[in-house]
């Protein structure tokens, strides 16, 4: 083959590769770092792909706050978020076409085995944070306006504490990075249980406070009004709230962690 033809062939191949990733059937899903870090999408998306071979899902894993802002700007078709107050505002402002519950899990407060602030076994998350603050034990905050960060601030508010000082570390990173940092610093942090379990082997952290109703973590799926791929967004929402996907969600984690990480609740709310 003459070099010129080879060059043209190469160009055509590159073009084909590039264009198949930007086809009109792509669904942009803005989601949260906690659902990405736990590995849920790796388990779910292949099943969606089998059910809808025409669509491709591109997951943008960011904090819930950013996920909603992306959607507001029209940069996402569908959102999976866990920041109920921010979602309420988003829907009230008319940015969303529909909102449906998908699943829930819970937040836990984790910390070093030594537990210098003595919060182990407390049922009330707010009083646990109050103890951490009064003993100035190091606490790593997401500090990134994510759903987890929003919940953490709510619990601080319930504790009547304004966290400031060198013990309060504002990381500005995703859940996985914050857990690694808390482990290194032997600090406390608030995390969703899924991300904690998926990283547990690398962490020198243990669950100290759990079970407070204030720590329930509800995920919802939102179809963005006027989405570029509105049909795809609706198809994804129908799929993830239907029994087969809900069953997959309920089974996720059983094999790897020996326990259920998310409880599907699309049927109820």
């Amino acid at each position, binding site marked *: 083959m003459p070099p010129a033809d080879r060059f043209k062939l190469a160009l055509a191949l590159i073009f084909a590769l590039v264009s198949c990733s930007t086809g009109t059937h792509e669904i942009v899903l803005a989601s949260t770092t906690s659902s990405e870090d736990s590995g849920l999408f790796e388990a779910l998306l292949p099943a969606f792909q089998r059910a809808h071979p025409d669509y491709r899902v591109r997951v943008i894993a960011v904090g819930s706050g*950013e996920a909603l802002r992306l959607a507001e700007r029209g940069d996402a078709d569908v959102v999976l978020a866990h920041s109920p107050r921010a979602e309420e505002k988003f829907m009230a402002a008319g940015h969303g076409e529909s909102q449906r519950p998908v699943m829930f899990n819970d937040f836990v407060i984790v910390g070093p085995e030594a537990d210098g602030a003595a919060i182990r076994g407390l049922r009330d998350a707010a009083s646990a944070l109050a103890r951490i603050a009064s003993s100035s034990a190091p606490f790593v905050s997401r500090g990134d*306006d994510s759903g987890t960060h929003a919940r953490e601030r709510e619990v601080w508010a319930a504790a009547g504490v304004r966290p400031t000082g060198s013990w309060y570390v504002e*990381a500005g*990173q995703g859940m996985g990075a914050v857990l690694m940092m808390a*482990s290194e610093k032997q600090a406390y942090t608030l995390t969703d249980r899924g991300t904690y379990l998926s990283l547990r082997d690398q962490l020198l952290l243990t669950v100290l406070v759990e079970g407070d109703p204030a720590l329930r973590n509800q995920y919802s799926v939102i179809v963005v009004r006027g989405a570029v791929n509105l049909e795809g967004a609706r198809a994804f929402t129908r799929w993830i709230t239907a029994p087969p996907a809900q069953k997959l969600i309920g089974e996720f984690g059983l094999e790897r962690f020996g326990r259920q990480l998310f409880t599907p609740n699309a049927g109820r709310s």
Partner: protein
Amino acid sequence: MDVLLEGLREALGLLLSGDPYLWQIIARSLQVSGGAVILGLLVGIPLGTWLGLARFPGRGLAVALVNTGLALPPVVVGLFVYVLLSRQGPLGGLGWLYTPSAMIAAQFVLAAPYVAAITLAAVGSVPPELRLQARALGASRWQALLLHLREARLSLMAAVAAGFGAVISEVGAVMMVGGNVRGETRVITTAIILETRRGRFATAMALGLILLAIAFAANAFITRVQQAQPRRRRPLTS
């Protein structure tokens, strides 16, 4: 378009109002990258000078290694420094992870090859007769070497600028080993990522403008040095 223009206007306002959050981040960036470049000079200048003047077997390989250092991916450097400094790592006892010290260490690894490579090129470009003449006129080996370095000083300053420009705009390594902690290890690049994610475009743009200004200053300096050099050398050979 509105987002862009409004963001830029707000960004200028923030910079001019002396917003403490912004200026603290800028100061930390200058401190970390400046520290890394100074350490890079301490190692890179001797190494580059030696490689530029000495002749020994395997020198070609050593030069190639230094030049490869120019292309070290920051995330890979970040990964290795992270593993070294983490609790379970060999240097975990230092307690450096997530502190500016760790960031300086990582950026030092990135900056030193810049300084070494440019020093190497600079000392190689000074005519060797200069040193021979100096020796003939009675200078000691060290005096001759210092004279040689003096002739190459503009290029050495370019080495500083190039190294600084490279590390201050680097984000992978500082994010990993520094952790982007507010008030402690948050620098211009990591702050831009976070503020963009939070939708605070004005703050992100203000930091972006500063970073552009720093990169521009560094490169303007390098360009000037490069253009000035041929004119400087003529009187030497006469």
